[in-house]
């Protein structure tokens, strides 16, 4: 009996070729960095966009998060890419959320907000974190620029069928333990390549109790476990999130859509190529110590010792990671000082993330040695946060309150780490140089990042908030 993934796949098969299927793509999201060459390729071949009405474009990766961005963007390459997307979207008749559009924001935030991401759909984007959208019970995956071009021209993609893995999370999360900690623990368990070749479906009571925002955080980081796809079965939480959003099914079609969506969850006797169980009832807030997302451990832990690692390849990797991170084995994680704190990214920049960080920041001050940024995921998140007074909480505590964008997640706009700087970050990747050349990243949840900001070092939010 089929899984959620298999049910969605089956209804999108246009034709087959050996083991591959030609998969119909319902929606494509587009941003400025991975699309210019795709549009140029179309033009060179004399092709046009098949279904512009199935596309949505936004500027996010390159854009500065300071107000002067509306006046002038200093970096020439960024300007060129932004201008290229404006021209390409206009030329093809694709909607673009431009810099000053109140709906502008990180591509994986604005898609769900608009209601265009729905259960049972296939959705792609030239960005590896597209798996985020699988939280709605959709086949959502990141593709390269050649495939972006392919979807623009044909609305379909040739795909191999991935293996099916189920991750069952049980137990009630303790206070200050979040979906981010769940996914970091899963990645630490199966490894950065553990999900390669798989679609991962997250299930279990813990996942069922998560909000849509928490579910998106979980699915966002499946790629950090190697899996292109993360999925969560749609339920009443999903339907309630979607109802009334601008691009959700209109009232006249709503009941039919919901009836259809209710047929999607994996059958109870579905077969899985691999199953992983996580008891989250004793899970602690997690942080990373190294340069791979799999290097996550409970905040009460210490930097591990490579010499205790038996596998020589892994030993060498850990030695390199510690050298890059300038850390010694045995150091307590809570003794590691930080220079910067980044609260944002497609992993953790939604309203619930900002509320969680603000609850810790309220009435406290950012440590004198720390520069801390809060970057809402979209203009709509920013507006809501301001309506709730969260901006004041952050500003009063000494955080910077920025405009929406990818910001300090990836070192391709003005928000970057300087060489040697150490950052507590709510983003998704702690690779060498990810947040800027020579920068050092420790991944954690928004509440944990806020705790680090006020402590000047990695801290256990449960101690700080007590």
């Amino acid at each position, binding site marked *: 009996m089929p899984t959620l993934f298999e049910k969605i796949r089956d*209804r999108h098969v*246009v034709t087959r*070729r050996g*083991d591959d299927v*030609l998969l*119909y793509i*319902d*929606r494509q999201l587009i941003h400025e*960095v*991975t699309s210019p060459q795709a549009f*140029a390729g179309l033009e060179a*071949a004399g*092709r046009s966009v098949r279904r512009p*009405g*199935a596309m949505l474009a936004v500027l996010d990766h390159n854009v500065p998060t300071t107000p002067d961005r509306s006046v002038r963007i200093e970096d020439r390459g*960024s300007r*060129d*890419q932004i201008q*290229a997307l404006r021209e390409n979207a206009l030329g093809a*008749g694709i909607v673009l959320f431009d810099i000053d559009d109140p709906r502008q924001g990180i591509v994986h935030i604005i898609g769900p907000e*608009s209601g265009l991401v*729905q259960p049972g759909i296939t959705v792609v984007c*030239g*960005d*590896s974190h597209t798996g985020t959208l699988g939280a709605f019970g959709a086949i959502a995956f*990141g*593709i*390269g*620029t*050649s*495939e972006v071009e*392919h979807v623009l*021209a*044909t*609305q*379909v993609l*040739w795909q191999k069928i991935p293996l099916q893995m189920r991750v069952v999370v049980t137990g009630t999360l303790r206070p200050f333990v979040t979906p981010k900690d769940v996914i970091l623990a899963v990645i630490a368990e199966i490894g950065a*390549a553990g999900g*390669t070749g798989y679609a991962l479906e997250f299930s279990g009571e813990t996942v069922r109790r998560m909000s849509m925002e928490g579910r998106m955080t979980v699915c966002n980081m499946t*790629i950090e476990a*190697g899996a*292109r796809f993360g999925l969560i079965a749609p339920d009443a939480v999903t339907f309630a999130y979607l109802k009334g959003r*601008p*691009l959700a*099914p*209109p009232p006249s*079609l709503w009941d039919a*859509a919901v009836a*259809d969506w209710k047929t999607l969850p994996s059958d109870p006797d579905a077969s899985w190529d691999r199953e992983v169980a996580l008891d989250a009832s004793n899970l602690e807030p997690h942080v990373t110590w190294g340069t*791979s997302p799999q290097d996550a451990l409970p905040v009460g832990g210490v930097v591990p010792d490579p010499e205790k690692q038996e596998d020589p*390849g892994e030993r*060498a990797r850990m030695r*390199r990671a510690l050298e890059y991170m300038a850390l010694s084995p045995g150091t307590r994680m809570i003794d590691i000082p930080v220079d910067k704190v980044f609260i944002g990214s497609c992993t953790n920049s939604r309203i619930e993330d900002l509320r969680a960080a603000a609850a810790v920041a309220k009435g406290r001050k950012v440590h004198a040695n720390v520069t801390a940024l809060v970057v809402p995921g979209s203009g709509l998140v920013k507006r809501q946060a301001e309506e709730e007074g969260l901006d004041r909480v952050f500003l009063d505590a000494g955080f910077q309150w920025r405009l929406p964008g990818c910001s300090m997640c990836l070192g391709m706009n003005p928000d970057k780490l300087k060489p040697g700087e150490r950052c507590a970050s709510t983003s998704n*990747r702690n*690779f*060498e*140089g*990810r947040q800027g*050349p*020579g920068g050092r990243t420790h991944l954690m949840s928004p509440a944990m990042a806020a705790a680090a900001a006020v402590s000047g070092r990695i801290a256990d939010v449960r101690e700080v908030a007590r």
Partner: protein
Amino acid sequence: MREKFLSLSTVGVPLDRTNVDTDAIIPARYLKTIKRTGLGEGLFFAWRYDMDGKERPDFPLNRPEYRGGEVLVAGENFGCGSSREHAVWALMDFGFRAVIAPSFSDIFHNNCLKNGMLPVTLPAADVRSMIDALLAAPGGKVQVDLEGQTVTGPNGEIHAFGVASFAKTCLLEGLDEIALTLTSAAEIDRYERERKKATPWLFLDLAG
């Protein structure tokens, strides 16, 4: 248009690291281009150059014995992380035509095939011994025969590898995949007509 993949007989360049991510292959600041060319400049930038911009002499790509090599031999989970196709463009712009590793990330693997670059998956022990041989005797040759699906290592050992038959044809002939897919246009049209009846809410124009 993709390049045709021809067989290779070239210096093998060992990169003895696992989990090589695409941020390491090409840092984000080099992605600010609207072209596919010229990205070789930023390839492995932080590993090739120190903070002052000087070449790190011990990094394999900087060692004279490995210069001009067209096959990179690396550890498991090569190309993980970001979907940036620029990683493949950078490797190709630098001169690489194939990467041999025990495993690849799914997206990177796909991106290689779209550009005429061959990702070769071999058992971890075979890759380990190939890296060791290339480190012990720099300048050793590696041959890649796509037609026969074999790799010949620096010590003459021959390894068979698997490749999907359609991908192989595309590589050998440098086919335009979009043109091939468009031969299924009638089926795509039919699919759309049927789905529009079943799930009309998915065919509302996002432009409103």
